[in-house]
C-alpha cells in the first residue's frame, strides 16, 4: 500500500534514476562530450571531458568557460569555432589540438548547435583523440616517401600479382619498361607479351616453379623486357615471392631491376678477355718465333763465316790453301748446319705438342713422368726430395707440353749443379695448392750455384742463354706456355743456395 505522500517521492526517485541513467550514459561515451551556452560557458560535460582537463567530475567545471580551462590560444580557437556554429546554425567537424599533461594532442571534434523552440541557445560538442591515427598517417606517409626514394634511386619496379583474379598492380617504373599507360589494366598476358620471345619459355618455367605449393615460393629470374611502344630492350633481374593460401598460390609480389648496364659491361669484359687471350697467343707465337730466330741465327752466323773463310782460302792466288784449315772450315760449317737442324727439330717438336688438345691432368703424375724422362735423357743421379700434395685437383693442360716444361726446368737445374760440380746434387720438387687461389704451384729447387741478379733478370729473354752450346728450349717458351694457360713462371729472387723456379697452373674448374 502506498501513501499519497509516497507518490511524489517516487516521481522524484524516478526522475533521479533517469538522471543517473543519462549521466551514466554520457559518462561512458568514450568521447569528450560537452554542452555550452551561447556565451561559451560549459553547462554540462561528461567525465572523460573533466578528466581530460584535470578534474574528477563534470560538476567541478560546469559554469566555467574555455578561457578558464585551456591555454589562451586554444580557448581562442575553440571560441571561434563555437561562434561559427552559433552564427551559421550548422554542425562543424574540426581536427584541433588539445593540451594534455603539457603535451599538445590532436582531437577530432564535432560541434553542433543546440536549439530550443527554433532558437539557438548553445552548442554541443563531441571530441575524440585522433593522435594515434594522425601519427600512423604521418608514419605511413614518410614510409611511403622512403619507399618512393628507394625505388627511384635503385630504379626498381614493383609488381603485385593477384593470381586468383589475374590482376597485376604495376608501379610507374614497371609501366615505363613495358610501355603500358598509367590506367591500363595489367594481366599475366600483358606481362608475358613484353618478355623477349627467346626468354619466354624460361621465364614461364620459373613462374610455374615458384607457384608450386611444395616449394619455397621464391621467384628469381632474369630476362629481357621489350617496351611495346618504342621497342627498347632491357635486361632485367626479378626477385619475388609467391604467397600461398590453402595450398594454392594466390599472390606474387616482387621487384624488378634494370641490369642492362651490368649485362653490357660484363659482355664487354668477356670480349676484352678473349681479346687478351688472343694477344697472349700472339705473344707466344712472337716469342716462339724470336726463340727460333735466335737459335738458328747462331749456327747460321758460324756457317756463313766458315764458308766465307773456305772460299777466301780457295780464291787467294798468292798462296796454296792449307788443307787442314780448309777441312776445319768445312767441318765447322757441317757441324753448325746440323746444330741448326737439331734446334729446329726440337722447336717444332715442342710447337706441335703445343697445338695438341688439352686434357685433365694430375700434376703429381706429370712431375713423376718428367723425372723419368729426365733420367732417361741422362739427367738423373741426383738426390730427390719430392713433396707432392695428396688429392690435388686436376689441371687442364696438354700433358706432353707440361712434361716438356718440367723436363726443361730439370735439365737446367741438373746442368747448373753439374757445371758447378756440387758434391751432393739435390733437387727439391714441391707440388702444392696455392693458398686462397684455385691454382697449383710447382717449385723446382736445386743446390747449384744459383743465378746472379743480372742473369735472373735476363734468363727469360728469348735471346738469352748461359749455355755456350745452348740448343735447349728457352725458358721464354716455357713461360709463354704457362702464361697462355693462366699461370706464371718465375725465378725466386736471391734465395740461395741454388736456383728456385716456381710455376703456377690453374685447376680445371
Amino acid at each position: 500500500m502506498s501513501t499519497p505522500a509516497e507518490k511524489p517521492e517516487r516521481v522524484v526517485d524516478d526522475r533521479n534514476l533517469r538522471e543517473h541513467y543519462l549521466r551514466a550514459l554520457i559518462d561512458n561515451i568514450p568521447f569528450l562530450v560537452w554542452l555550452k551556452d551561447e556565451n561559451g560557458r560549459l553547462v554540462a560535460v561528461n567525465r572523460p571531458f573533466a578528466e581530460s582537463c584535470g578534474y574528477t567530475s563534470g560538476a567541478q567545471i560546469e559554469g566555467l568557460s574555455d578561457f578558464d580551462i585551456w591555454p589562451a590560444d586554444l580557448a581562442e580557437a575553440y571560441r571561434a569555432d563555437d561562434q561559427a556554429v552559433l552564427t551559421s546554425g550548422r554542425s562543424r567537424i574540426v581536427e584541433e589540438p588539445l593540451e594534455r599533461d603539457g603535451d599538445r594532442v590532436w582531437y577530432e571534434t564535432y560541434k553542433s548547435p543546440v536549439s530550443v523552440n527554433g532558437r539557438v541557445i548553445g552548442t554541443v560538442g563531441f571530441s575524440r583523440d585522433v593522435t594515434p591515427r594522425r601519427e600512423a598517417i604521418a608514419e605511413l606517409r614518410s614510409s611511403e616517401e622512403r619507399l618512393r626514394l628507394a625505388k627511384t634511386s635503385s630504379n626498381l619496379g614493383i609488381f603485385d600479382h593477384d593470381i586468383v583474379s589475374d590482376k597485376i598492380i604495376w608501379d610507374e617504373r614497371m609501366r615505363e619498361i613495358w610501355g603500358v599507360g598509367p590506367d591500363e589494366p595489367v594481366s599475366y598476358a600483358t606481362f608475358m607479351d613484353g618478355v623477349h620471345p627467346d626468354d619466354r619459355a624460361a621465364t614461364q618455367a620459373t613462374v610455374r616453379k615458384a607457384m608450386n605449393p611444395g616449394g619455397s615460393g621464391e621467384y628469381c629470374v632474369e630476362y629481357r623486357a621489350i617496351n611495346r611502344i618504342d621497342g627498347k630492350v632491357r635486361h632485367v633481374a626479378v626477385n619475388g615471392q609467391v604467397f600461398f593460401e590453402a595450398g594454392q598460390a594466390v599472390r606474387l609480389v616482387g621487384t624488378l631491376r634494370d641490369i642492362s648496364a651490368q649485362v653490357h659491361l660484363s659482355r664487354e669484359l668477356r670480349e676484352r678477355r678473349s681479346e687478351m687471350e688472343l694477344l697472349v697467343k700472339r705473344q707466344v707465337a712472337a716469342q716462339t718465333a724470336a726463340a727460333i730466330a735466335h737459335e738458328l741465327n747462331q749456327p747460321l752466323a758460324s756457317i756463313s763465316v766458315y764458308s766465307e773463310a773456305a772460299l777466301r782460302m780457295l780464291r787467294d792466288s798468292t798462296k796454296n790453301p792449307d788443307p787442314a784449315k780448309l777441312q776445319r772450315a768445312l767441318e765447322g760449317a757441317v757441324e753448325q748446319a746440323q746444330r741448326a737442324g737439331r734446334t729446329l727439330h726440337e722447336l717444332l717438336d715442342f710447337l706441335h705438342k703445343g697445338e695438341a688438345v688439352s686434357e685433365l691432368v694430375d700434376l703429381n703424375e706429370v712431375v713423376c713422368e718428367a723425372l723419368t724422362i729426365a733420367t732417361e735423357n741422362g739427367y738423373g743421379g741426383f738426390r730427390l726430395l719430392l713433396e707432392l700434395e695428396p688429392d690435388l685437383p686436376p689441371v687442364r693442360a696438354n700433358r706432353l707440353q707440361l712434361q716438356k716444361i718440367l723436363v726443361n726446368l730439370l735439365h737446367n737445374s741438373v746442368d747448373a749443379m753439374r757445371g758447378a760440380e756440387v758434391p751432393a746434387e739435390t733437387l727439391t720438387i714441391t707440388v702444392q695448392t696455392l693458398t686462397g687461389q684455385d691454382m697449383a704451384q710447382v717449385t723446382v729447387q736445386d743446390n747449384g750455384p744459383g743465378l746472379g741478379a743480372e742473369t735472373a733478370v735476363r734468363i727469360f729473354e728469348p735471346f738469352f742463354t748461359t749455355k755456350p752450346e745452348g740448343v735447349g728450349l728457352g725458358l721464354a717458351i716455357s713461360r709463354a706456355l704457362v702464361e697462355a694457360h693462366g699461370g706464371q713462371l718465375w725465378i725466386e729472387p736471391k734465395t740461395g743456395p741454388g736456383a728456385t723456379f716456381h710455376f703456377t697452373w690453374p685447376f680445371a674448374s
Partner: protein
Amino acid sequence: MNGATVFVVDDDRAVRDSLTLLLEQEDIVVEVFAGAESFLAACRPTSKSCAIVDLRMPGMSGMQLQAELSKRGILLPLIFLTGHGDIPTSVRAIKAGAVDFLTKPIMGSELLTSVKAALRESERMSMQAEASQTATASIASLTEREREVMALAVEGLPNKEIARHLGISHRTVEIHKARIMHKTGADTLLDLARIADAGGLRP
C-alpha cells in the same frame, strides 16, 4: 795486314773458330776469348789491334766490357756482333766509341772492312798517344820560366810583348826561346804549337 792482332770475344765456340779462320786468312793474328772477364784478364792491346765482341754473353755483356775498358783507360777499337739488330743499343755503343755494330749472320767482306777501319783507328790512336807522350816529356824537361815563354810564344805573341809580359829583357826572351826549340826538337813555331797542344800545355 802484318802485325795486326784481333781479339775475338764470343761465348759461341763455332763463332770464335770460324772468325779465327777468316781473319787468319788475312794474315791477322787472332786471340779468342769465351767471355769478357777472361778477355779483360789477359788483354794486351798492341799498336795495331781491335776486338770483335758479342753483345750478349753470359756474365759481363759487350756493353759492360766497353765501359770497363774505357774506365781502365785502355784504347781499343771495338766491333760489336749482335744476334738481332737492336737500334737503341747500337746507337749507345757507337756513341760510346764503338767502331762498328754488325748483325749476325755477318758478311765476311763487311766484317773485314770494319776490322780494317778499326785497325786504322787503332794505329791513329796509338800514334796520337805516342806523340802526346813525347810532347809531355819534352815540356816536362823545360824550366818554369821556359814553359811560361813557350805558352806565350805559341799564342803568337812577338818577343817584345813576351818580354813586357814577363818583365824581362828582349834579349833574355830570345835566349829562352832558343833553348826551348833545342830541348823540344822543334824547328818552327808551328812545330812548337803542335807539341804544346799534344802535351797539354796551357798558358
